[in-house]
């Protein structure tokens, strides 16, 4: 059975008529302001299909009919494949999934040290994430400091893809890298044709705000689309700095920027899955910092869900939090962020495990704490049902007003198991009972649990032979990347 996420979308901040205005504004920006694309083949393709290109500035203006045509072929429903069918993810505009990662530079390890991430951390954190029941999509949570700079994404691919059964969220520095990644996936999937038919990985492409697609962005986007590899087309707005300070204006910039990428992808390969993606934040005007956990950031991410869905595109939102330790700040930031996103119907809640300090730091302990928060948030989003059975009038009549309780009623036993979320790290004991059990706070409990998970060696998702072959291709790719430089 594939994974089918719960349905979000209860929370809406934008009224329908305001949503129309956002759409018109995006269409106008695309058609009249345009997007800079620093890649000739992209501009040529768009020009061939009726976009207006200023060849001296590389700015392309995309008319509404071209946008409509792209949206008609971009699917609203598709599957992201896992290595086994139970890890397939059924994507539509309502269901909510989570993504681990992304790309932290440092780790806060289980001994409490803050230090640069290593490849061993990538292995351990990926193994830890793989055991999180609410994680749907695997991503590189750190970029190790002990791997080569050029082609590092290939080493990360080899590591995470080999460990995890989940669909792998990858990135590429060149078209060549995309092809190498297809080769690596083919080691497991049997052939490159099979990879293209049922891709077990995706690519993210991060555009620059305002309204700019770098050469590398378009190159990777076009190469992935050509092979049918699903794309997260992402902008990371810094509201107030790289996008307008009003949230509505930021939604407009994000929309025009992402949709320009969607149009390009659909021209290259009509039907290739495109996920409208953001990892935006506000700029803290006191120190210039990117804040992924500010309340305004939550609003941007919730609002963008409505915008993406209006265009019929599945949506990735979510950012890391700003706290530096798994402390009270971390708890409140993560909870508000995750809950807002899930309720808003963010189809992929990104950076949802362990990511702290403005996406610079990954914490082992926070991975487990986040699993707990995400579990609770999903439970809230699931809501409750009202029907004859749950209204329980007959049951109330049976127990009656003369004293009694429901604990011994079979309905209770039947119902609570499927209805209740059972915490694993949360402590609901009284003081004395909690003290008697060691008096551990949540961080300590998470630490113990992480150690226990890591102590247990589980087989990787691919065989040792496959892992060796994948590693060989990655190393070869790194060598080639170094030569190209």
């Amino acid at each position: 059975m594939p994974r089918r996420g719960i349905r979000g979308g209860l929370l809406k901040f934008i009224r329908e008529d305001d949503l129309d205005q956002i759409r018109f504004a995006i269409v106008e920006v695309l058609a009249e302001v345009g997007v800079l694309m620093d890649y000739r083949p992209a501009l040529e393709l768009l020009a061939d299909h009726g976009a207006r290109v200023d060849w001296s500035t590389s700015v392309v203006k995309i008319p509404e009919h071209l946008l409509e045509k792209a949206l008609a072929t971009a699917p609203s429903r598709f599957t992201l494949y896992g290595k086994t069918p139970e890890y397939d993810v059924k994507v539509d505009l309502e269901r909510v999934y989570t993504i681990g990662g992304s790309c932290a530079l440092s780790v806060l390890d289980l001994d409490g040290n803050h230090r640069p991430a290593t490849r061993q951390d990538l292995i351990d954190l990926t193994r830890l994430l793989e055991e999180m029941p609410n994680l749907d999509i695997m991503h590189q949570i750190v970029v190790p400091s002990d791997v080569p700079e050029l082609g590092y994404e290939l080493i990360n691919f080899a590591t995470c893809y080999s460990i995890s059964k989940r669909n792998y969220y990858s990135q590429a520095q060149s078209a060549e890298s995309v092809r190498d990644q297809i080769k690596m996936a083919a080691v497991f999937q049997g052939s490159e044709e099979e990879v293209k038919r049922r891709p077990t990985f995706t690519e993210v492409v991060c555009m620059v705000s305002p309204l700019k697609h770098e050469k590398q962005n378009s190159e990777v986007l076009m190469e992935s689309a050509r092979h049918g590899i699903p794309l997260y087309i992402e902008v990371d707005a810094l509201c107030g700095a790289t996008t307008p300070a009003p949230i509505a204006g930021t939604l407009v910039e994000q929309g025009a920027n992402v949709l320009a990428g969607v149009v390009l992808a659909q021209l290259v390969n009509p039907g290739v899955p495109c996920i409208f993606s953001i990892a935006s934040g506000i700029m803290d005007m006191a120190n210039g910092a990117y804040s992924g956990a500010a309340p305004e950031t939550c609003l941007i991410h919730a609002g963008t869900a409505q915008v993406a869905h209006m265009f019929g595109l599945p949506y990735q939102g979510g950012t890391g939090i700003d706290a530096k330790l798994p402390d009270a700040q971390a708890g409140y930031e993560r909870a508000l962020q995750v809950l807002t996103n899930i309720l808003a119907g963010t189809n992929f809640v990104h950076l949802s495990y362990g990511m702290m300090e403005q996406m610079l730091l990954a914490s082992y302990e926070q991975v487990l704490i986040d699993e707990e928060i995400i579990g609770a948030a999903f439970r809230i989003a699931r809501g409750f049902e009202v029907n004859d059975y749950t209204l329980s009038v007959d049951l109330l009549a049976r127990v009656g007003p003369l004293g009694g309780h429901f604990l011994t009623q079979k309905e209770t036993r039947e119902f609570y198991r499927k209805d209740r979320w059972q915490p694993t790290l949360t402590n609901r004991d009284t003081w004395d009972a909690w003290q008697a059990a060691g008096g551990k706070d949540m961080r300590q409990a998470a630490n113990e649990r992480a150690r226990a998970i890591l102590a247990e060696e589980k087989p990787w998702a691919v065989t040792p032979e496959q892992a060796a072959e994948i590693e060989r291709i990655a190393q070869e790719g790194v060598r080639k990347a170094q030569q190209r430089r």
Partner: protein
Amino acid sequence: MERTELFSKMQQAVIDGEAEQVESLARQALEQGIEPLEAINQGLIPGITEVGRRFERKEYFLPELMMAAEAMKKGMAVLERAIAERGIKREALATIVMGTVKGDIHDIGKSIVATLLSAHGFDVVDLGVDVPVEKFLESVLAHNAQVLGMSALLPTTMPYMRRVIEALEERGLREKVKVVVGGAPVTPAYAKQIGADGYGDDAVAAVRVVRELLGIKEQAQ
């Protein structure tokens, strides 16, 4: 207008970030026969110094700071043109070449630093992003820069800063420029390790460290 009144209007216009006003006041100063250097020192600089102070006290935030810096630049352009016309060379505090290193397109942090430095009287040559070694070297030579500032936001591009420093050494330029580095993943320890002279974790720190390296004292008011 009375000179002192004019200067205090200029200061206020910088504080308010009113670029056009600063520009027209600068012109007015010239028309009144005020020495451009004096207008800079008594009109513009006290204004921006006050803005910097308010920023550190968190009374002003980045938008006010950046707009004041832009306004300051506009005024400077008018006054420096006049200085040049008189055939004098204004002594900028120093010339600083800045850029985000090759392979890296993170722009905004570097731009904030560049703007703030120029607002504090430095001549800043902003080379933009994705800047290769040769371009840094050429620019340092062409502008006879005393400081080279590099920004990197990716661990994959941080080592490039070391390459630039090595290239400076190879060309015998290392002694001529102070190298300062920054960007979210860069640490003081890393800066030291690659042989940089200074590090700053935000734009205010960048100004402080550049001043320290050049032995420039805080402007007295």
